[in-house]
């Protein structure tokens, strides 16, 4: 059997309160697999930010996480409106969130910047009108 753990989560775009469930679940699995706290924390932050983005901007989506002793790869795929200008979206403080979302305390424009800070690599591909795919990788330093 290959040393890869695959986890899949569907993110419900209608349910604000459930956002964060996938990152919580992944956090617990990583811990039980024996990953260190720093890595567990970074993975949880990245995933949480991604999850929130999918709920706010894309009416939900799907998360696929694959974990090997070398790396954690997280793919977030949605069928939302897409991001017209990815470079702009990466800037701290830039947000297209609605006032309603901002009133709830989200939309500070820190989602993608945080993902970039805590992941070892971040790739965002987006097609306006079709959706966005976010790939984050966390590399595991050999012990």
């Amino acid at each position, binding site marked *: *059997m290959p*040393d*890869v*753990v695959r986890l899949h989560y569907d993110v419900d775009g209608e349910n604000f309160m459930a956002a*964060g469930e996938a*990152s*919580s679940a992944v*956090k617990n*699995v990583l*811990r*039980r*697999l*024996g*990953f260190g*706290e720093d890595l*567990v*924390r970074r993975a*949880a932050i990245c995933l*949480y930010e991604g999850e929130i983005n999918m709920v706010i901007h894309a009416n939900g989506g799907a998360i696929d996480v694959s*974990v*090997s*002793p070398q790396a954690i790869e997280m793919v977030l795929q949605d069928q939302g409106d897409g991001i017209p200008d990815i470079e702009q979206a990466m800037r701290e403080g830039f947000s297209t969130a609605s006032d309603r979302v901002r009133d709830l305390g989200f939309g500070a424009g820190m989602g993608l910047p945080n993902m970039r800070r805590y992941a070892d690599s971040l790739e965002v591909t987006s097609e306006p009108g079709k959706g966005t795919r976010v790939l984050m990788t966390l590399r595991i330093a050999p012990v």
Partner: protein
Amino acid sequence: MSTWHSVTLIRDKCKGCTTCIKHCPTEAIRVRRGKAVIVDERCVDCGRCIQVCPHHAKRAVCDSFDKLGGFVYNVALPAPSLYGQFHNLDDVNIVLAALTKIGFDQVFEVSAAAEMISDATRRRMRDKERLPRPVISSACPAAVRLICQRFPRLIGHLASHIAPVDLAAILARRAAARETGLPPEKNGVFFITPCPAKATAVTNPVGLSRPVIDGALDMSEVYLRLLPAMKKVENPPQIATSGIMGIGWAASGGESAALLGESHIAVDGIENIIKVLEDVEDGKLPEIEFLELGACTQGCVGGCLTVENPFAAKARVKQLMKFLPVSRSRMTDEIEPLSYMDTPLSHVPVWQFDTDMATAMEKHARIEALRERLPWLDCASCGAPSCRSLAEDVVMGFASEEDCIFRMRERMMYLSGTGDAEQYLPPPFREQKK
């Protein structure tokens, strides 16, 4: 460190009914051969199983009163929750005086040590840099053990004070040595405990390299001895050394109230604790400065060795506090060093699938695959609390797939070669007729 636990099964009374395994917050119980079995490494002695068992087949084992006979001079350390057990009590000194009539030579209130710890924590929290927020109370041993097992990232948030009873014991022992001049082993120090978690901590202390208390006495047993003795107390001497801030620790909210801050929350009940700790870990409660945790309903007054309903006991403690000064014991520079843990707490990885990561991943994959084949009914007939925990047990080598009655049935059908499985299925599982 020994693996001794206060929470113990009374074998003859256990019917193997699976109630306890469904309520255990750390999934530390299985049913085997018709009897509950506690997994020592996972049990945090919260006492939930004692509270929920319909057959009273679980109990909190404490020391016998006879143990006092092994010492020349004995000091009682009453937990403040004791004061909430009596009708119409208007003076704590009556309880303290009665303790000296039922076998103790001296009394040292745990609430006095609690007051000192509140005093120190209040001062330490003024300096924002020193303690990461939220500061988490380290007073409830069940909560601390839970954090060490399941929330390793929050270990650094624990206040790192020893429990008030441990500080009380250290101070009481010093006072006893001064007073009696006896060699240390002749002075006994006994805690009157409201719960099994604290009884276990007497033998296996939290954050201390060695035990500092000679024994834990069951509060309900002490209560029965105290009632007649209290009736005979007239004009009790003024020996109480704690006030509102110390005695308030008896019930949920008291410890945080004594810190005089605003962004403090008090969480009682171990299920609630788990939810709040998850939120804290995920950064969802950034405004909270201090988190008080008590595994029992309403805090220590809800411990399973108490006599009175926890809500009534809390009201009584509040009533008692009306007549008390705010505080009577303060932390001094001389005592403060004694109030810290001497052994750092660390992650107890009882939930890890394997110490080798590749093996852990392989086990995880097998657990997930098996889980898919189980009925998701969580009926606990297999002796594990849920289908997921059975899948884990099978892969970890503690159970077999055929422990599931549904898997077993399929296997028997296959072996006997008979056809219609449907008619033997319970109603929730029959296919809908087309």
